[in-house]
């Protein structure tokens, strides 16, 4: 690789500057402030860019430091030759941030993107830090160490392959896992947590074991309590048994006391009856007589005639002071009452007798205005005349008129007249039964009559086609007669199709019937009068009878009935009164007899008169029973005492208990409660101790877990060591050549360091001095800068087998003395035969 040229647009103090690089060494030896460091920074910036900065960024910041003093575009370009191609990197920088930077790479004049974002890494295989530790050599940076990037590059170079594994990442992961289990310091980590848990569980287990041990004491205590309870139970049973015997003695004593008390009661009874007590027979006789007396008293009381009845009897006696009416008289009165009722019925029937419809019509026709005899005579004469003229007219008419037509005309008019009359009559008849229908029929009858009359007048007015004066005259006369007759019959409702003759005859017949009806009514009224008179007579007679026996009622039949009842009551009461009197006399006699018997016995035993009563007798009987009962009780108690004494074996009375059964029971209860408490405590403790097994399991699991964690920890440690060893072995493969190259360079520069120099995997140099291994800290500044130079050269030799990169040296030999400086210069010339070196210094003495 070879840098060819550069152009700086603006970078620090440099403005619009171009430069070329020669093969071998390109040396820039200028005074301070010329811009050497600026150019070095520019070259580095072309490959690696400039870091961004912010207001808080500390330390030396290239982007800030080299920002053009005079403004303008910040950057430039660099052209180099590499692996047969010419590349040009053109970069311009933003003031602060890399985001605003512009960068274009050209390969052989064409834009090339093969380097990606990290051009330095792509070209040198190193990151910026590693570049500074290898290809960039200064007098200040004398630290010799490796980087990951250097290692990768070395590894790649040595083995010829890419390292895919991240040693540091793996070690960090393992270390994290290790620390997770066990922190390097303090008590953190899962192992310690598990140990703590084990410790806690062990303490807990010890507690359980302590509690379990305490159970032994509790069991012993329980056994003691159990024995105490058993002893007390025995004592209580013993006390109970003795107490039972004493209780029996007490019962026995009570029985004796009771017997004595009963004997005293018996003695009192004997004092009360000094003459003794009647024997059973006497007592029965006394009982019988007293009871008899009681019964007789009751019977006397029951047969006594009640005062109410007596009053009633006396009232009836007063009522019938003149004697009781005979049955015959009573029957006569009853018959009269019956007759009165019958007459009353007859009269009512006669009075309420109703007329037939025909009779009613007749009465209506003739009631208001009866035709006189003269009227009848005139009517009959007119009728006769009418008949005569009508016969004559018929004769004449048969000659003049066609009978058919006449008949027809006559027939129709007649029919209308008849129908009208019939309807009128029927309407009148029905008027009293069904008023509306009657009116309707009468209306219809009137209509027919009017029609018939109109037709007649029309016929009369019509001129005869072949008229004859006689006929007309006759007809006129007939007509007049007919009207006269009608005037007579019509007011009485006689008008029909049958003609005036017929109607007249009908009226005549009706009038006859009317007269007969009037006669019948008169007869009936006469009969009513007769019956009324008879009834008045009967009424008076009956009432007089009733008044005689105290009955003032208007209802005659009821009054007679009351007399019947009073007679019967009076007879019954009188009979009862007499019977009562007779029975009382008999009972009094029996009562006196029984009383005599009782008094006789009372005197015998000197009993008070009270003893002769039912109450006294009851008291006596009670006393007798009480005495007998007391006597029996005394006897029973005597037997019971004997029996009780024998059955309960009451020989000798035991001593009283020193401690009562109750006290013993109390002690026993107390002991039982203590035993119960003890049991409860045992159960509680056992329940607690039961958890011991769980804790044991937990402890075993925790111990198992700890063992596993410790195994894992050990595994992690072993793995870390194994990886570290592998890493070392791997490094050993390339450290040896580095060390070899280092020695070559050191030999060329510094003899004293050549002996016994060793190098660790991170290229830290250790040398022996005064028999002790020492680090490079103990080297002088000059020696350090020699070591740094040799180390970088050795690394470069090993990292790049093919095309060598350029080396950038920024006044690296400041600390060398003249001898070493010469050696260094010589070495640089040798090196420049194989690679391009850009050398910057500020003093002529160090110019190469």
């Amino acid at each position, binding site marked *: 690789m070879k840098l060819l040229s550069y152009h700086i647009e603006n970078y620090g103090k440099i403005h619009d500057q171009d430069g070329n690089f020669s093969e071998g060494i390109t040396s820039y030896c200028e005074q301070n402030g010329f811009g050497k460091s600026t150019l070095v920074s520019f070259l580095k910036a072309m490959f690696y860019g400039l870091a961004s900065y912010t207001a808080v960024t500390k330390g030396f910041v290239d982007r800030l430091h080299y920002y053009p003093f005079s403004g303008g575009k910040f950057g430039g370009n660099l052209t180099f030759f590499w692996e047969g191609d010419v590349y040009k990197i053109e970069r311009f920088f933003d003031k602060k941030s890399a985001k605003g930077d512009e960068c274009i790479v050209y390969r052989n004049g064409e834009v090339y993107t093969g380097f990606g974002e990290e051009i330095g890494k792509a070209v040198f295989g190193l990151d910026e830090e590693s570049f500074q530790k290898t290809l960039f050599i200064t007098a200040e940076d004398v630290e010799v160490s490796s980087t990951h990037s250097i290692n990768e590059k070395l590894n790649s170079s040595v*083995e*010829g*392959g890419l*390292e*895919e*594994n*991240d*040693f540091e*990442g*793996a*070690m960090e*992961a*393992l270390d*994290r*896992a290790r620390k*997770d*289990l066990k922190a390097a310091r303090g008590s953190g980590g*899962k192992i310690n947590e598990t140990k703590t848990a084990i410790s806690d569980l062990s303490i807990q287990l010890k507690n359980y074991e302590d509690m379990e041990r305490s*159970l*032994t004491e509790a*069991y012993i205590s329980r*056994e003691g309590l*159990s024995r105490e309870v058993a002893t007390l139970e025995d004592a209580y049973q013993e006390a109970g048994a003795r107490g039972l015997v004493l209780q029996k003695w007490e019962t026995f004593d009570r029985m004796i006391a009771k017997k004595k008390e009963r004997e005293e009661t018996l003695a009192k009874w004997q004092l009360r009856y000094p003459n003794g007590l009647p024997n059973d027979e006497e007592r029965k006789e006394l009982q019988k007589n007293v009871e008899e007396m009681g019964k007789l008293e009751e019977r006397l009381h029951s047969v006594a005639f009640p005062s109410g009845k007596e009053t009633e009897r006396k009232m009836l006696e007063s009522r019938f002071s003149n004697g009781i009416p005979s049955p015959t008289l009573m029957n006569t009165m009853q018959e009269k009452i019956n007759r009165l009722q019958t007459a009353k019925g007859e009269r009512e029937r006669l009075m309420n007798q109703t007329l037939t419809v025909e009779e009613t019509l007749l009465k209506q026709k003739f009631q208001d205005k009866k035709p006189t005899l003269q009227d009848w005579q005139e009517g009959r004469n007119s009728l006769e005349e009418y008949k005569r003229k009508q016969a004559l007219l018929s004769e004449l008419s048969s000659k003049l008129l066609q009978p058919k037509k006449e008949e027809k005309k006559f027939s129709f008019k007649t029919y209308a007249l008849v129908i009208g009359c019939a309807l009128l009559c029927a309407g009148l008849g029905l008027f009293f039964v069904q008023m509306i229908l009657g009116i309707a029929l009468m209306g219809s009858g009137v209509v027919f009559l009017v029609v018939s009359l109109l037709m007649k007048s029309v016929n009369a007015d019509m001129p005869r086609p072949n008229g004859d004066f006689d006929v007309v005259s006759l007809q006129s006369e007939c007509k007049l007669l007919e009207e006269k007759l009608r005037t007579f019959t019509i007011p009485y409702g006689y008008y029909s199709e049958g003609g005036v003759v017929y109607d007249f005859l009908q009226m005549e017949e009706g009038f006859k019937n009317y007269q007969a009806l009037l006669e019948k009514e008169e007869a009936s009224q006469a009969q009513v009068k007769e019956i009324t008179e008879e009834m008045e007579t009967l009424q008076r007679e009956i009432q007089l009878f009733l008044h005689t026996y105290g009955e003032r009622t208007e209802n005659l039949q009821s009054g007679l009935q009351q007399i019947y009842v009073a007679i019967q009551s009076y007879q019954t009461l009188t009979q009862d009164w007499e019977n009562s009197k007779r029975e009382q006399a008999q009972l009094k006699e029996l009562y006196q007899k029984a009383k005599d018997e009782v008094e006789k016995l009372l005197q015998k035993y000197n009993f008070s008169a009270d003893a002769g009563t039912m109450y006294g007798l009851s008291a006596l009987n009670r006393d007798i029973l009480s005495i007998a009962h007391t006597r029996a009780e005394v006897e029973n108690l005597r037997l019971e005492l004997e029996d009780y004494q024998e059955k309960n074996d009451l020989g000798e009375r035991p001593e009283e208990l020193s401690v009562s059964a109750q006290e013993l029971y109390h002690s026993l209860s107390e002991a039982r409660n203590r035993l119960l408490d003890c*049991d409860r405590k*045992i*159960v509680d403790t*056992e329940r607690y*101790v*039961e958890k*011991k*097994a*769980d804790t*044991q*399991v937990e402890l*075993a*699991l925790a111990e*198992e877990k700890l063992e596993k*964690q410790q195994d*894992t920890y050990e*595994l*992690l440690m*072993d*793995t870390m060591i*194994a*990886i570290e*060893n*592998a*890493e070392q*072995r*791997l490094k050993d493969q390339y450290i040896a050549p580095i060390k070899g190259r280092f020695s070559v360079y050191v030999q060329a520069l510094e003899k004293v360091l050549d002996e016994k120099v060793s190098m660790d995997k991170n290229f830290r140099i250790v040398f022996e001095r005064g028999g002790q291994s020492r680090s490079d800290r103990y080297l002088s500044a000059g020696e350090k800068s020699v070591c740094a130079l040799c180390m970088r050269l050795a690394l470069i030799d090993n990292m790049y087998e093919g095309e060598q990169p350029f080396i950038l040296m920024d006044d690296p030999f400041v600390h060398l003395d003249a001898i070493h400086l010469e050696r260094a210069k010589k070495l640089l010339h040798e090196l420049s035969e194989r690679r391009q070196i850009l050398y910057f210094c500020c003093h002529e003495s160090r110019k190469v």
Partner: protein
Amino acid sequence: MIKFIHCADVHLGSKMEAKLPKNKVEERRREVADTFRRMVEYAKQEGVRAILLVGDVFDSDRPFKRDKEFFYQVVKGFPEIDFLYLRGNHDGQESYTEGLDNLKLFSNEWTSYSYGQVQITGLELSPENSLSMYSTLSLDAGKKNILMLHGQVATTVGNEKIHVGKFAEKNIDYLALGHIHSHSENKLDDRGRYAYSGCLEGRGFDECGEKGFVLLEVDEEIKSTFHPFAKRKIEEWEVDITGAENAFSAYQRVKATISFQASNLYRIRLKGEVTFEKENLEEDIARYLAGDCYFVSVKDKSLQKIDPRAYAGDISLKGEFVRSVLERQDWDDEKKSKVIALGLKALAQRELTI
């Protein structure tokens, strides 16, 4: 014919050794008691005359009140059965103050109980009688003799040791032993044999296999039959998962190897070599098997297979690492396997879940 049950090492109130979850620990504790009760019910159904409890009915010298009450209740509840209780090394100090007619006890002197022609004799071992018991034992040759002892069968004499050879020719027909939690039966002499009934329920992975009691039917001869009676069986299996491609594939190997019973407890040791990353393998397989059994514990003892040839030409840090580990002489294969697996994971920048 008269029947007896030979039973031992019930260990009522015992803790569970299988590192079960808390709820299952309690459940198993209840099941131990329940199996004892079931056995007594079985005895009643079968017309067993007496149950020979050959030691360690309780797990502690001072059993919990609750466990004692349970035991007494069972004994009281079956008055038709005699309980011949011989204390063992775990319940040696237990004293039975409750006098129960059907609870027969023993002491540190030979004690006998007769059931017709059957004579049951027992002795609670102590340092004092551990030497003399052989000479003080005297049995009627005309009877069927059952001997009860709780201790370790040995070929020497000593405390808690039973030198069965010294009981030969002592007219023993059946020597009922307690202490060992697995059933076994062996010949004692021409006449008799000795047997451990084993415990009733396994309590940990050190008590695998069938557990139960021995039914003795005594007629002309004593016929002994072991009855597996435990509610759950504990099994331990070793499964080779070589060739498995992942955790599920390894699980399938396990399933193909073991016929799981839903009620049982399993411990599975994985062995062989696998190429896949085994991270959380134990947990994964245990999770897959959770529904197949009552409890499972998986222990991964398989190795991460590393082929040195695959790294022979690898010039990277990874290759150097694998080669350097494989060259280690002070590490066994398991250690190398684990270090390589972890190192490769770290170098591949993958998350390390520890």
